[in-house]
């Protein structure tokens, strides 16, 4: 297993499936009377958030706490990245506090990457600028597999502001790794100029794509894009690229509608679509906790049930203290079905 999760491209097909399978087992735990596992007892997970994102922060916080980790929330929101303490000095502070994992949300693309050079613990990218948001892609893939039973060959349309979307980048990379066929749908202004090099198809016309789609993922549109002439008005955007009930009717019967949230109801997605039976939006939130538990567990606890992995996991296992149940020991107890069931 990898040490950091910065990009969805860091994950091999086996890594990604292991995370999804592990998340599946952890999700079952949510139905038990006691939802907490002692797996990461004595470990410290820091949520380092430079951007306001309550939903992502509490999702990571819930995930870490259900694994019994100590959670420190470090909110640097409001502080400009250009002012105040440098990211490096903050990183060294967290390092001195013994952070075993740092979950970072930052407005600068690449900030988590930089962080890996300054801390010894695992770094988990919780969204960096317009770069990536790999745990979002994992929870999206998890949701698709749960709903539709497979990922291989699944036809996924990602619609909206691809240019500025970290969700789109991570999803394209992960879904490609997992064998899905992705089509990006957006006005040309909201696609990267070199998008032809991405492992996906591109369309400017939502209505022609929908009938051939199993999953449609709507991206949030920021109103500020209008000021930079990406599109003429919000209304025009909504007419051409929004998903309303009429457009939803073009989808095959089994198709689902996803949104990473927060939604602009009436802009990229109509209320009747968001609230329909096809919508997985609330489910995505619940799945987010399971997937993030799996990520923290695998990064910190190691993937090998016979003992800690030879890299960081071992060092961390040593640090956890001999009296505690080590991650390997415990894992054998609760994680029975080790074999990763292949995505069909």
């Amino acid at each position, binding site marked *: 297993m990898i040490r950091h999760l910065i990009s969805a491209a860091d994950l091999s097909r086996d890594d990604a499936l292991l995370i999804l399978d592990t998340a599946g087992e952890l999700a079952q735990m949510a139905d038990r009377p006691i939802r907490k596992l002692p797996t990461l007892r004595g470990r410290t997970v820091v949520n380092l958030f430079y951007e306001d994102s309550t939903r992502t922060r509490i999702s990571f916080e819930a995930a870490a706490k259900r694994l019994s980790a100590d959670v420190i929330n470090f909110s640097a929101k409001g502080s400009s*990245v*250009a002012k105040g303490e*440098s*990211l*490096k000095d903050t990183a060294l502070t967290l390092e001195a506090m013994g952070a075993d994992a740092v979950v970072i949300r*930052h*407005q*600068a*693309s*690449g*900030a988590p*990457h*930089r962080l890996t050079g300054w801390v010894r613990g695992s770094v988990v990218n919780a969204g*960096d*600028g*317009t*770069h*990536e948001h790999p745990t979002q892609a994992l929870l999206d893939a998890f949701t698709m597999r749960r709903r539709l039973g497979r990922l291989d060959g699944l036809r996924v349309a990602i619609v909206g502001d691809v240019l500025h979307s*970290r969700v789109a*980048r991570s999803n394209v990379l992960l879904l490609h790794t997992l064998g899905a066929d992705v089509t990006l749908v957006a006005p040309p202004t909201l696609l*990267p*100029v*070199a*998008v032809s*090099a*991405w492992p996906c198809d591109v369309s400017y016309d939502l209505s022609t794509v929908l009938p051939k789609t199993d999953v449609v993922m709507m991206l949030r549109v920021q109103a500020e894009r209008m000021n*930079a002439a990406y599109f003429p008005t919000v209304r025009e955007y909504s007419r051409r690229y929004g998903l309303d009930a009429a457009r939803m009717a073009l989808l095959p019967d089994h198709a689902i509608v996803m949104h990473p949230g927060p939604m602009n109801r009436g802009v990229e997605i109509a209320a009747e679509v968001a609230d329909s039976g096809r919508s997985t939006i609330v489910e995505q939130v619940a799945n987010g906790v399971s997937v993030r538990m799996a990520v923290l567990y695998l990064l910190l606890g190691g993937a090998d049930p016979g003992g800690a992995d030879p890299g960081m996991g071992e060092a961390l296992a040593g640090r956890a203290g001999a009296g505690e149940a080590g991650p390997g020991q415990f894992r054998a107890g609760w994680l029975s079905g080790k074999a990763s069931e292949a995505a069909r």
Partner: protein
Amino acid sequence: MTGRELAGSGLAGRGTWLISGVRLAGGELADLILAGGRITETGTGLTAAGARVLDGAGLIALPGLVDLHTHLREPGREDAETVLTGTRAAAMGGYTAVHAMANTTPVADTAGVVEQIWRLGRQAGLCDVRPVGAVTSGLEGRQLAELGAMADSAAQVRIFSDDGRCVSDAMLMRRALEYVKAFGGVIAQHAQEPRLTDGAQLNEGEMSGLLGLTGWPAVAEEAIIARDCLLAAHVGAALHVCHVSTAGSVEIIRWAKSKGWRVTAEVTPHHLMLTDDLAANYDPVYKVNPPLRTAADVAALRAGLADGTIDCVATDHAPHPVEDKEAEWQVAAFGMTGLETALRVVHATMVETGLLDWTGVADRMSARPAAIGQLDGSSPTPSPALHGRPLEAGSPANLVLYDPAAHSVVDPAQHASRSRNTPFAGMELPGQVIATFLRGEPTVLDGKLAR
């Protein structure tokens, strides 16, 4: 006494040097005698009683290099570089003249500031410092600075630039080009259309899309260059294009030159070697303005420099303190150091590839930049100090002795610059500057600063 210095009683005074058996840029082996600040004799089997002798075996002699684009940071950012440390770096790189860009604090937009920088250069005595004057007051792009006053000052400014910012207002650019004709000036444009590069971080292409860094389109550079060539032609003025970075820019400049227009251009060593995929790890040492481009651009720039479309190599030496680079990409400063590696990078990218011979290197790194900066004695206005002259009797003794057989890994800790932001750190490059002479006096000897 240095490793290569064989003998010398000192009786003839410190000013006389005999450099024996050096290969001149043209290829022939020769001895050179330097005395009284000039090359007094060239030939074979020369002797000079009492002269200090430097064994030039295996070395190439080039006329002292001239940089049209250096950021010395003084006044204002002495934590990054000073005129003293910057000219030490220049000497170590084989330079005998550098043009100090105007984006200091205060901005070099008045006769007072340019004279201050010029005097600091004279005091340091390592390299002639030729201040570049700002085109507009405070580099703000609103009102012309007092260009004539800077031209008439002791610093005798001939090149004007708002470098770091583009003179994007077409009317203002036209007026600047026209106005400096009165005193033989040239406007050096930093070509960057500001609206197309709002928040730009990295060449717009596959890498910027993948990394989620705001793209910096080639057209933002090319559109300004095309406009400025047309403006220069219209008013019959001289335009110099700073740090050309795209294949399209090379094409436009080639076209403008074919028309006979007075357009010159420079390319940086880093744009001759490095590409945008180096940004993959978000290390801001690769963050620079204009940005690193693609391999196709690098190939076009090399070809343009080889065929003379691009006149010269200019370093855009941009020192920054550690903390300004040890940050998120988006927050980190733009720029790279370059003075101490320029000749070696040109060696690797142009000579080892067969695109230029050493005569060509002497032309692109000394003669042509000296001509553009009006330091070669060819312009009607008297030049304060001659540079870029051929290595022959009567020329000022400005020269660099270079060992082309040497190879070493670039170690920023060894650099004379106050800053360490070199993108070539850890890279093995050919060559070594053995000695630099400024008007007959060594500034570098045996690969080390001589003073």
